[in-house]
């Protein structure tokens, strides 16, 4: 794992937060809560507002601009927030604070809160793919066997063929999941085209094998299905109506 120095513990006010650039140019929000330290993306996922200008009460972080909120221990979205914060696991060595970068699966909201064992088993199924700009992840009518987790880059979706086609949104955050038809019954074929607009890193994971793992861990399966239904509700809105 790639371990980077961020700052020393003394730099952070008690139950406070600062913005720091970690070694290698990674911009982070570093937070102290009691005896614990947390590191998150420095800018609000909504409008790129610096989160260090926000409000922190020791448990909940609020961006002052539109009151998006997150649980400081997990980065999970609360209240009005529509996206979680990307979290960077912290390691303390003496007075020094380091972050280690984590894989996209750990950042994926779809799998937040499931058991470590099942997450590790899903991670073992994941195949890393490096794709150049312009490459098509899947096309209309392709078998919907695998789903994808975005590690980096940008993927765009197109619904409908030829002149009647319409853009169906895009993915740009680490941990966003697409191609989730692979996790549904009776959805054997792709109904959209997914294209990488930039060089992109993806995790490709077999849907059927994932469902088998979740059947053996129903608590995890329940969480994933709940998240998946939220995801579908959010994206299955081609007209834009809620």
């Amino acid at each position, binding site marked *: 794992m790639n371990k980077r120095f961020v700052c020393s513990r003394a730099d952070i006010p008690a139950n406070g937060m600062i913005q720091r650039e970690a070694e290698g140019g990674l911009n982070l929000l570093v937070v102290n809560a009691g005896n614990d330290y947390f590191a998150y993306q420095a800018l609000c996922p909504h409008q790129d507002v610096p989160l260090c200008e926000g*409000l922190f*009460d020791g448990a909940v972080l609020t961006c002052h601009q539109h*009151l*998006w909120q997150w649980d400081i221990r997990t980065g999970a979205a609360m209240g009005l927030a529509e996206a979680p914060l990307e979290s960077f696991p912290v390691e303390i060595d003496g007075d020094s604070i380091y972050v280690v970068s984590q894989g996209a699966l750990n950042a994926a909201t779809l799998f937040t809160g499931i058991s470590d064992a099942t997450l590790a088993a899903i991670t073992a199924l994941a195949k890393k793919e490096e794709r150049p700009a312009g490459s098509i992840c899947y096309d209309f009518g392709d078998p919907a066997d695998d789903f994808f987790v975005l590690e980096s880059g940008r993927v765009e979706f197109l619904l409908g063929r030829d002149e009647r086609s319409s853009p169906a*949104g895009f993915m740009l955050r680490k941990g966003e999941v697409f191609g989730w038809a692979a996790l549904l019954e009776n959805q054997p074929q792709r109904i959209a085209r997914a294209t990488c607009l930039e060089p992109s890193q993806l995790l490709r994971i077999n849907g059927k094998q994932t469902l088998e793992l979740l059947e053996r861990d129903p608590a995890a399966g329940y969480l994933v299905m709940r998240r998946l239904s939220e995801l579908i509700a*959010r994206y299955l809105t081609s007209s*834009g*109506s809620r």
Partner: protein
Amino acid sequence: MRIQLNARNCAHHFEARPGARMLYAGLAAGVNLPYECGSGTCGTCKARLVSGEIDDLWPQAAGRKYLKHTNEFLMCQCAARSDCTVEVANFVYNADPGACVPAFRAGTIEGSKALTHDVLSLSVQLDQPADFDAGQFVAMQLPGVPGYRGYSMVNFERATSRLDFVIKRKPGGGASEWLFKGGADGARVEVFGPLGVATFHPNLGKNVLCIAGGSGIAGMMSILAHAREARYFDQFHGYVFFGVRTYDDGFYLAELSQLAGDFPDRLHVTIALSDEPVPAHAQQRHPALRFDHGLVHEVAARTMQGKYHNVRAYLAGPPPAVDASIRMLLLQAKLPADHIRYDKFS
């Protein structure tokens, strides 16, 4: 001009007339584009131009400081010169059924009069009646003043041809200087609206807390007018905090007294004076109101302790006052963020 707007969840298509600001064209077409001030200040309507050509109608807009790349622009200040494809990194939905869809409306300024030494009220008589929700605002273009300014409606009526406003004088502010130099009555203006999400409906089912600084009381008056009409305070409590510098800076005190007198058990109105102790005659002249000395969010914090059960808060006023109220409500009162409503546009 045909605009294709690529959002995180899907693409929207709408028409924009030549010279029409893209934000207004999209909102008028029933697409809930991201915005907050609608008048070039906040940067919330930032978008990326994918293809096509645009004109920037107000390159001096303060909100341009939020733009990071040369292909980014403010939808509230730019008009399409050709068919355009633009992108916003937000989820964008269609307007809810029943929402008041904004539109361009022409009207005439009437009845402008001074309320204090630096606040005036005026009305815009619309050529066609319009609907808005209590708490909403319009972006107004005044003759010879570049760009639009956001002003909240004071009144509340369905299908009204009259919009009432209060305007605070801002030294050096083009729009307010134009209004304060006098002779505004009879001027033709264009408004775009209604805008804003800090709205009140009597089906809310919560106690209402209003914290307003200065001309921010405008939207609260509209909310109170709607609540009075629906006899909302027969059932729910209303807590209104109106912050001004001194007693002489206060306005609408007679109207607020009348409201408080109509609902003596449940509507509580406090005037917070930041720059002077409460003069003795204040209470005598307005026995239905409460007066206190301090910044409005501090007075609200003192008075509201233990009263936050089932409360929706509405905030308005100068941005530092709104920010202070937000901080107080989240950190001290522990009010959930989705129970706080405001539109920052001044």
